[in-house]
């Protein structure tokens, strides 16, 4: 396949995207590019030859991957774990109802929804409980198809990455097989979850970058070079678009690209102009395009969802007015500009902890609060989270007595001084040097009642457009609920999305775990349990692979340190090009593991085992790298080499054995109590065993 890839960059992509059918790398014996008349003639003289070069092991791996991930995809026909969460969003997409999800950007949800769309899902399913049976209208198979496909394609990607790192096809085959037989990746791929899609894009980004980098030396600025560079940027933005976790790999690739560029700077044969061109090309492909694509995901999200829904209220009023139904129903046909005499409602823009409107009612503040502080005993002004007649205010010019709208209406402008009259009680909004009920350092806001004591009304407010409501005298802000400005809509939306933090009160979850548990797999997650038969699905990794991946990481680190120190003393244990291979493989695999794992120690959100899967994928890729290095450079004699190979075969069969052992809880096959007990290899695993006699 490597040979084919050198001829046509598209061939590999074809091999990936046309998975399931026979991937053909069609290459003309002569290039059609740069054709001249002479060459045309020459071309006609020669017979037309089509050579197809097929890497059968890659095809076989892809087919096996597809089988392992797609087999019996619609079983169990019930809501499994986080499907209950993502399913809601799929339904909302199907019904085109606006929503925001605070946990991540929208691309992942959109891809899941695409599956639903292709399967003809109408969105009518109540996603309320894990384990609930799907109704007939839910196309389970097509909903789960895209994640499973992405999971299956990770296998050829892993193969190609090792090939591009210049390791042997045998090592590449090993990497692909380890990914194929990793139970946790299988489980995570087979349901409507986002991790497998994320891992697919991460690996695609890494592969594209490696292809790009390998082309760099010989054919800069060629078509294939551009293609792989662009694909790196696109895959990175897709990874970030699926989950913010993709950012870690994106940063890693940026850092590696920066490092490579730094090395290029030292190359005195390159002219300054070509360096600038290289820099600009990388900047465009790795910075500008990902950002643009990331924004476009939000644009598509907004374009798809045009109906009002449950999450409207965290957005600005202007945005809400643009949705079908909801606020648009009210604001339809109302004047755009506020004039003196207009009746308005005022909503606090921030919307935290909940959205509310400026409100007043006939009740007054208590004369004394519980803690003994006094108040003005004037009419209460509050922020009320529901629509109500008491939310209506009239804008009045302080210089005029009457409230009627003059003809032509005089619009209120930025900086004008106005009075606000409460519609129902006809009292003026007022503030004065009396401590507010709960925040003693702020002033109280009330509706003024003239008690005829020496406290004059301080009821003039200055309108400052586009500012958060500051309740200071003269400095009030009103964001007018119907100044819709469609240009800034996307950006407003974007920032609102960022601001939004639905505060997670209880971060405890039955299956939540700490990042330290992941390395040793001290934790599992029960995804699904059959109500009667005892069949269950767990997120549980291949014990053997996890342990060997850890060993590989340790061996890699120790060996690297050893080599590094010895090289510093000018002792070269391995040839220079082998050392370069070793380092570049480490940059990708150890680097990928570190950036996808260590940040979790700093996070305060609820963590689950599946957060470790991207890091694990990189760690698994390291195993064959270390094995090949050991056999190439440390096993000097033929005997030790063959001993080593035998050990590797034995180890690999134990990986297969572990895969077989745990595959019942991966695929959800029914098991007896005794069998389940046998599977509980670690005390900390939570395998659900029904009590006898129930």
């Amino acid at each position, binding site marked *: 396949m490597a040979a084919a890839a050198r001829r046509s960059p598209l061939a590999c992509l074809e091999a990936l995207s046309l998975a399931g059918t026979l991937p053909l790398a069609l290459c003309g014996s002569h290039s059609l590019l740069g054709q001249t008349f002479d060459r045309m003639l020459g071309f006609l003289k020669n017979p037309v030859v089509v050579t197809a070069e097929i890497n059968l092991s890659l095809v076989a791996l892809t087919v096996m991957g597809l089988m392992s991930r797609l087999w019996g995809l619609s079983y169990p026909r019930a809501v499994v774990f986080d499907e209950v969460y993502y399913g809601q969003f799929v339904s909302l997409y199907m019904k085109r109802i606006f929503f925001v999800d605070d946990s991540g950007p929208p691309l992942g949800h959109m891809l899941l929804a695409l599956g639903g769309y292709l399967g003809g899902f109408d969105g009518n399913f109540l996603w309320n409980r894990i384990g609930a049976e799907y109704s007939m209208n839910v196309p389970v198979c097509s909903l789960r198809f895209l994640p499973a496909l992405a999971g299956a394609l990770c296998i050829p990607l892993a193969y190609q990455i090792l090939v591009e790192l210049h390791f042997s096809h045998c090592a590449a085959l090993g990497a692909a097989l380890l990914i194929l037989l990793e139970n946790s990746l299988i489980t995570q791929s087979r349901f409507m979850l986002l991790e497998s899609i994320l891992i697919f894009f991460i690996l695609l980004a890494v592969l594209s970058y490696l292809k790009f980098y390998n082309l760099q030396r010989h054919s800069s600025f060629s078509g294939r070079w551009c293609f792989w560079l662009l694909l790196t940027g696109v895959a990175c933005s897709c990874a970030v678009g699926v989950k913010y976790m993709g950012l870690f790999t994106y940063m890693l690739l940026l850092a590696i690209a920066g490092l490579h560029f*730094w090395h290029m*700077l*030292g190359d*005195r044969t390159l002219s*300054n102009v070509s360096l600038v061109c290289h820099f600009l090309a990388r900047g465009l492909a790795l910075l500008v395009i990902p950002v643009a694509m990331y924004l476009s995901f939000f644009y598509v999200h907004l374009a798809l969802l045009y109906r009002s829904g449950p999450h409207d209220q965290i957005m600005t009023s202007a945005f809400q007015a643009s949705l079908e139904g909801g606020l648009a129903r009210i604001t339809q046909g109302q004047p755009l500009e506020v004039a003196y005499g207009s009746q308005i409602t005022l909503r606090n823009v921030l919307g935290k902890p909940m959205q509310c409107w400026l409100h007043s009612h006939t009740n007054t503040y208590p004369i004394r609060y519980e803690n003994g502080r006094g108040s003005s005993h004037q009419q209460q002004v509050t922020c009320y989270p529901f629509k109500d007649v008491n939310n209506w205010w009239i804008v009045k010019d302080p210089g005029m007595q009457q409230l009627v709208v003059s003809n032509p209406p005089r619009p209120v402008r930025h900086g004008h001084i106005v009075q606000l009259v409460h519609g129902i009680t006809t009292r003026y909004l007022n503030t004065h040097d009396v401590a507010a009920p709960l925040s003693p350092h702020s002033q109280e806001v009330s509706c003024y009642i003239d008690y005829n004591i020496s406290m004059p009304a301080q009821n003039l407010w200055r309108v400052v457009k586009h500012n958060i409501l500051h309740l200071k005298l003269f400095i009030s802000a009103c964001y007018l609920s119907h100044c819709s400005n469609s240009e800034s809509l996307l950006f407003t939306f974007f920032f609102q999305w960022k601001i939004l933090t639905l505060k997670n009160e*209880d971060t*405890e*979850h*039955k299956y*939540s775990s700490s990042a330290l548990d992941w390395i040793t797999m001290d934790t599992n997650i029960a995804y699904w349990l059959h109500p009667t038969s005892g069949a269950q699905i767990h997120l549980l990794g291949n014990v053997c692979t996890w342990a060997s991946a850890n060993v590989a990481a340790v061996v890699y680190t120790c060996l690297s340190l050893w080599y590094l*120190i010895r090289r*510093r*003393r*000018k002792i070269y244990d391995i040839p220079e090009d082998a050392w370069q291979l070793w380092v570049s493989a480490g940059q990708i695999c150890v680097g990928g593991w570190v950036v996808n794992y260590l940040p979790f120690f*700093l996070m*305060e959100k609820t963590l689950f085992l599946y957060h470790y899967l991207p890091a694990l994928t990189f760690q698994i890729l390291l195993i064959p790298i270390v094995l090949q290095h050991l056999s190439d450079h440390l096993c000097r004699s033929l005997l030790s080499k063959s001993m080593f190979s035998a050990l590797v075969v034995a180890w690999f069969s134990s990986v297969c054995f572990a895969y077989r052992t745990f595959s019942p809880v991966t695929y959800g096959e029914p098991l007896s109590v005794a069998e389940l007990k046998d599977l509980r290899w670690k005390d900390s695993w939570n395998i659900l065993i029904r009590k006898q006699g129930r």
Partner: protein
Amino acid sequence: MPAAGGGRAGPGPLRQRGTRRLQGTPPASPLSPRPPAGRRAALGLVTLLSFASRFHRLPEPPHVCWDETHFGKMGSYYINRTFFFDVHPPLGKMLIGLAGYLSGYDGTFPFQKPGDRYEQHNYMGMRGFCAFLGSCLVPFAYLTVLELSKSLPAALLTAFILIFDTGCITLSQYILLDPILMFFLMGAVLSMVKCNSCADRPFSASWWLWLSLTGVNLAGAMGVKFVGLFVVLLVGLNTINDLWDLLGNLNLSLVTFGKHFLARVLCLILLPLTLYMAMFAVHFAVLNKSGPGDGFFSSAFQSQLIGNNLHNVSIPEQDGYPLSCHCDPYPGGLCRGEGIYTYLHKDLNNLWIIKKHDSDADSSSPVEFVRHGDIIRLEHKETSRNLHSHQHEAPLTRKHFQVTGYGINGTGDSNDFWRIEVVGRRAGRLIKVLRSKIRLTHVATGCILGSSGKTLPKWGWEQVEVTCTPYVKETPNSLWNFEDHINPKLPNISLDVLKPSFVEILLESHMVMIRGNSGLKPKDNEVTSKPWHWPINYQGLRFSGVNETDYRVYLLGNPVVWWLNLFTIGLYLLIAISTAVALKRGVQLTSEHKGELSRVVLCGGGQVALGWLLHYLPFFMMGRVLYFHHYFPAMLFSSMLTGITWDTLLKFFSQFLSPSTTARRVYEGGIVALILLIVYSFYLFHPLSYGMIGPMASDPSSPMAGLRWMDSWEF
């Protein structure tokens, strides 16, 4: 330090640097031919100015300002030898206490709240001590920059920035930990830099002196606040880089390298560690009386404090049926009855009787011991109800189960059964008072008894909620130990047997400090200072006084200085990148330029810039409450960077002017102009540190009128 600097790698550069130093001492460059006498005079001048600015109006205001209420109080605790708890390690407060003790302060002032007048109490010793350490920062920074850049103007610029920064002055004038911390921090940086410049004569006396001084200062910095960890990191990175260079030097044998390595281990790891432990030893030796900090520590530790209700008491060691015990969440939870000092008046509501799950032990039966894994009932001694849990949600933590007292006279139901387990033991072992950390598992639901740490509302007497958590996890919230233990049939032991070892105390106090630090979370809706506010001098801290009639002191950096620093960081980044690229591309430069740029900009400036990053960036990841004064260590580095950067920049550009006298004049004129700018801005803003009385700045008649350049400044 970027490896690309390359100036320090390999044997060649090392020797080269040595020779350069030798030649370079008299006329290093045509622009700075100053004799060492001038440098000494300059050092004297900046030291004098520094002390004068810090000690000016030191007694004002004669009342407690800001955090003096904490650290002054803790200094008094040392003088009174009362045990207390603080989230910072003890050295800073011990030194404050020592200064107070030596200057004749008797520890009687209560330091209750900011604004309390000192009256006749002698507080000047403590303030003077802090001001002394704060004044030392300026000569330290001067010497560091001089060592890094070998340029007097750069050092002078840095020194003047620090002398005339209102923030540094204010922070040095009160009884606070920050001047002490910054003293050790700058001391560590200075000794590190000095030690680096001794690298050409390793194992000489001065080399050993500076290396061990680095270690001592590191211990000091760590001993004052955990922020000292950042400077440890800085020194650590520098040492690794150093060793790496030495390793690459093939002229050095591995034995010599081993000596280098061991010398650093000795001076930078073992020495600081010993000193750090020693200061804790002193801390625990001095504080031997019970005080406000007891409840944060485990029962075994409390038994060592004079006056604590656990001191010198004796209780049965193994638990038998029936017994009464006082259960405290381990450690630091709040049970009712904490703070009651005599044994006889202990709150009886904390006592429970342990019974077997299936039988009521009568008083005549022989003693049976409670073992790991036993199933028991806990009967509340006062009300005779059993500790009970069931599948109802707890009042505050919805996902946990409610825990109640149930039944009459000790008869309840199967929901009263609890399995008792000792952490880290196997079945059948005896359970010991105070030392066994136990876990109580509810038999029927499988949940674990724990305290959720949330305070109940008024109806629950604002005590801490107890729940039964269904998530089986190891957390300190679900560990308990037996504290009081009454059983007439068992022989009593003295708690001295349980005396924890010093290492145990040390570990425990660190656990408590770390938990205390992470517990300092901002409350909802509380306005807190954000790290990005700091370099732009966005908002200061009120040290004293709010109203017009008060004597007001406001901690705010001199805005001209701080904005210059901020601008310089960007400038430095630009210069450093262009220098690195130019060197990498092999742009034709004179070798002098090349050496100068790589040594000063990349190596010296890089070290300082790294220090700034290490002392600033970690705050973005901290969840605890942050304050403006946390930036000051980073600000020291930023000021040094400003000195180095402007000096290099002016020197570089003035060299393009043709007659060397003009070049010289432009270069010196630039430095003098910057210094004058700083002095003038200090003249404008000095009332911030030395106190303002009268109308606020918004009033045109105020002396500060027109100086409130940002709306967020509150003066």
